[in-house]
């Protein structure tokens, strides 16, 4: 402000006027974002109202925290929160470190062509759609015709009906996630490792370091900033476990462990038309996610110097 006044108020306008073309370039995206992203953020006030479509978002009656209280008091509250947390923490603990290991491993491969084949084939499952992935999981695990029980049968291992076993749900979710995305998620780390100065390795070799020591002393420190950034982002979606895959893998037998916040919200909102109740659950979920993101970001900022913002 001070600066703008000192250089004359017109110069800011002058700069805006000179770059009018840049603002024009942003118009379509701004319009789309206001209509379809920011208006729903305003629409979230229906969580505090008794939404009636005829009365509109603004015209509906305010009811304060009624729907939040209803959710907190319902038996589905602890149920959905626990299921969501179990699945998301399990996912975080397993799928966060594995891509790092994979990248470190990939970095040790010197056979160029082999490395290429390895990378292309581990990235490939990433491009399978969620629907096909879930179809594959259900077919492969089927106790009567699935290929996994067959192969394990050869080794003499008996496997029950995993899809019908509620306790197996989180493991099925997490390990199929690993199969599908571990390769792809390692790309960022591989990129970070490719920028290591080769002189560092040479210096370490002169000092008599073996491969293992080089990984510990050079590679891992190199990956820390990327790790921290990705970790903060992952924490920010702790309660945001992907709806798509959980919903498709749900069945009557595993529902006790597979009903998470987002699937419950979808059923309440769009299947039984309890708009306000469902919006309240969604808002609660988003606020918690947002708060965790800010917290982890602040903690990381004060401990090290990596942060998102």
């Amino acid at each position, binding site marked *: 402000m001070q600066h703008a006044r000192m250089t004359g108020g017109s110069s800011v306008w002058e700069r805006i006027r000179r770059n009018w073309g840049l603002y024009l370039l942003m118009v379509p995206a701004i319009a789309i974002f206001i209509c379809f*992203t920011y208006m729903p953020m305003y629409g979230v006030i229906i969580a505090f109202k008794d939404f009636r479509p005829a009365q*509109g978002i603004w015209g509906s009656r305010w009811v304060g925290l009624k729907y939040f209280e209803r959710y907190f008091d319902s038996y589905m509250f602890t149920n959905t929160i626990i299921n969501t947390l179990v699945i998301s923490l399990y996912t975080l603990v397993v799928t966060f470190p594995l891509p790092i290991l994979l990248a470190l491993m990939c970095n040790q491969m010197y056979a160029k062509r082999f490395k290429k084949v390895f990378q292309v084939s*581990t990235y490939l499952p990433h491009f399978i759609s969620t629907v096909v992935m879930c179809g*594959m999981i259900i077919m492969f695990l089927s106790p009567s015709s699935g290929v996994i029980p067959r192969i394990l049968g050869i080794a003499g291992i008996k496997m029950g009906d995993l899809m019908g076993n509620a306790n197996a749900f989180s493991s099925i979710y997490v390990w199929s996630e690993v*199969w599908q995305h571990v390769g792809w998620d390692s790309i960022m780390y591989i990129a970070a490792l490719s920028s290591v100065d080769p002189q560092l390795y040479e210096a370490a070799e002169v000092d008599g370091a073996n491969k293992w020591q080089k990984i510990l002393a050079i590679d891992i420190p190199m990956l820390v900033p990327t790790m921290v950034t990705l970790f903060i982002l992952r924490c920010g979606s702790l309660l945001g476990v992907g709806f798509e895959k959980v919903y498709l893998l749900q069945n009557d037998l595993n529902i006790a462990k597979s009903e998470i916040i987002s699937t419950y919200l979808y059923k309440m909102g769009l299947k039984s038309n309890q708009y306000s109740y469902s919006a309240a659950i969604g808002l609660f979920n988003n606020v918690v996610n947002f708060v965790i993101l800010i917290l982890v970001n602040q903690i990381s900022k004060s401990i090290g110097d990596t942060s998102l913002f």
Partner: protein
Amino acid sequence: MSQIAGKNHPAVRNHIRKSRADKTFDWIIYTIAVLMTLLALYPMYFIVIASISDPNQVAQGNVLLWPKGLSLDGYKHLFSMGNLWTGYLNTVLYSLVGTLIMLVVNIPVAYALSRRDLVGRGLFTFFFIFPMFFGGGLIPTFIILNNTFHMVDTFLVMVLPFSVISYYIVVSRTFFQTSLPAELWDAAQIDGCGNLRYFFTVVLPLSKAILAVIALWAAVGHWNSYFNAMIYLRTPSKYPLQLVMRNILINNEMAASAMTGSAAADINRKANLIKYCAIVVSSLPIMTMYPFVQKYFNQGVMIGALKG
């Protein structure tokens, strides 16, 4: 023997110098890598061989390494299923139009935000990044699209409302910041070139790499998504491929309808065969295209990694 012959070759010398621990280390790494490659590829390979085998052989567990009782019956049946092909066509349309819209809205914003002389740059950046971390949620979005814009069950809802992607903007902005030298714009200005002409005649031709990355991401995203269609479409003839696939794979639509009169086990086997074929047909475009364009995907992730 060849090691001795080529003893003076630097790679060989290096090899000899390797300690025993390092050699064991290499062995472990390559063994794990081979196992992982097989583990990644086998499920996909199994789907393909199961789709061209006799369903009874598959059900008995005889098809594990190669196809048995070759037959194309599953594919023949698939070709007679109208809804799958309608879905295919719909998905091609949604993907083409949707990808085009995504390029048209995201790339210009990314360029504008990459310019340091843009007044209000911080504010606009915040406007475009904030939705990455907070949103109205499913229900408010549905109400706005349904009650305010009346877009439910239209073609438009599949391509327009969710076309601005913060992540694409961040990645392309980083690309523009790092790959376009500032002197270029200075020179263009001296020649009397305006922002718009500069963007279309200089920036875009220099940015084919990022255009390819975003286009591929967008196309794969459209091809593979079912969520928006499930929420916002009502008429089955407008369903994209993935929603049709959901009905086949998850809801077992065929097993109930297509083959009446056979024994239950028989129905189940044939239904599985058709599922294998449907998976192959629906994934084929992306899987065959991927190895040829994979460098663009990697490039994109790496540009994004420069400044998350």
